[in-house]
């Protein structure tokens, strides 16, 4: 078991809004603030572009963790997008918790373009959490595990 844990390389999908969090990730990069390579970023115009279907699809295809990053509430480039995100994801995450998916596989964080440090610490922290939860076995499609 311990050997398996050592080899566990989680797949983490990070949806980042173009205006704040993607730029925050860029800043983390240019500031050389490391975070695990398990995290792969998908650029979306706004966190409100992220459909719950995307989150579930990531799990279906074998992701172990999904994180959404957007502008801080009040700072959305499109004024209100992240407020919708906040409600949608609150419900989705609550539902995942309800059906017994481990709390912590999903997260929403607000990261501004200036918060390279926050981006990096957030990703480090999230990756650590996913490591501690181990492989996602409750939401994946078995056909994708090989």
């Amino acid at each position, binding site marked *: 078991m311990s050997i398996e844990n050592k080899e566990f390389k989680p797949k983490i999908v990070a949806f980042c809004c173009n205006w704040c969090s993607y730029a925050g990730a860029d800043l983390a990069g240019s500031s050389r603030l490391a975070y695990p390579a398990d995290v792969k970023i998908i650029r979306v115009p706004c966190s409100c572009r992220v*459909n*719950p*279907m995307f989150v*579930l*699809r990531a*799990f*279906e295809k074998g992701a172990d963790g999904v994180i959404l990053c957007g502008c801080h*509430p*009040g700072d959305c480039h499109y004024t*209100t997008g992240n*407020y*919708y995100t*906040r*409600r*949608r*994801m*609150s*419900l*989705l*995450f*609550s*539902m*995942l*918790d*309800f*059906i*017994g*998916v*481990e*709390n912590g596989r*999903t*997260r*929403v964080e607000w990261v501004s373009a200036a918060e390279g440090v926050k981006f990096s610490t957030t990703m480090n922290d999230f990756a650590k959490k996913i490591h501690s939860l181990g492989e996602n076995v*409750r*939401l*994946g*499609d*078995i*056909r994708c595990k090989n």
Partner: protein
Amino acid sequence: MQELINKSKELLASGSINRVLGWKAGDLSYNPEPAFFTSEEELADFIYDDFCAANLSKFMIEAAKKEGKTLVFLKPCDTYSFNQLLKEHRVDREKAYIVGVGCSGKLSTTKIKEQGVKGITKITTNGDTLEIATLYGDKSLNRSDVLLERCHVCKGKEHRIYDELIGESKETSDRDKFKEVEMLEKMSPEEKFAFFQQELSKCIRCNACRNVCPACSCRKCVFDSDKFDSAQKLNANSFEEKMFHIIRAFHVAGRCTDCGECSRVCPEGIPLHLFNRKFIKDIDELYGEFRAGEDAETVGPLTSFTFDDAEPQEAVERG
């Protein structure tokens, strides 16, 4: 019932309506079907009894496409669905003549059979008891033991939209609608997972829950289209049924009137209302009480927000 038939005849005769949407007597004692009536003769088969559980609001989508006005009989809970459909421009108020009908709760055939009743030949309601004649002898059941789940958590017997009201109602609500959800919430993740795994593994993806649902009124469901590469007709494994039911619940979140049709029609008896009710509970707790379909105007909780809404992590961890 006769009053309903008389009203239908009267309005059909006057030409103010083109058809009646109601229930037609079945060939067994418990299987009336939703039906359109266009003439006095057809109305001979009209029935309104304990088994007329079907929510006719959904059929009003089709009725809106037909020529002229449709008289529709709506139970109190059905009117919520009608309002919600009206809000979403899926039904036409001008083409509907709504007669609110009284309701004393509807019965579940499944529950009757669960009481060990086999070979039913006749069911008679006698106040609070059901007299059931069967091929294997007569039985008598408590009406409240075989009420549909939704009737135990009835929203109340007030019609939210109507042109006129006919008939008396009797309060049936005697349970806390969130009790089941709360019980599940208290379980450990493993227990919750095991519960839903067992329930959802029964799903045969027949789409009855979706197709009966007045909120699932999409012309083409995402699960039937290639828009998300999500078209599926099968539960190849346990993930897909979860995906289907979670997304379905999410799509109707803030729009679901908790009419309970999904659970009523599920051939495998999956308590599908739990998904919707979980969302209703979350919405009530996080964003203030909201009852979809109370009116046709209020903006829904997922298309609105406040500046100080809870963060998703808080929402999950609120316990």
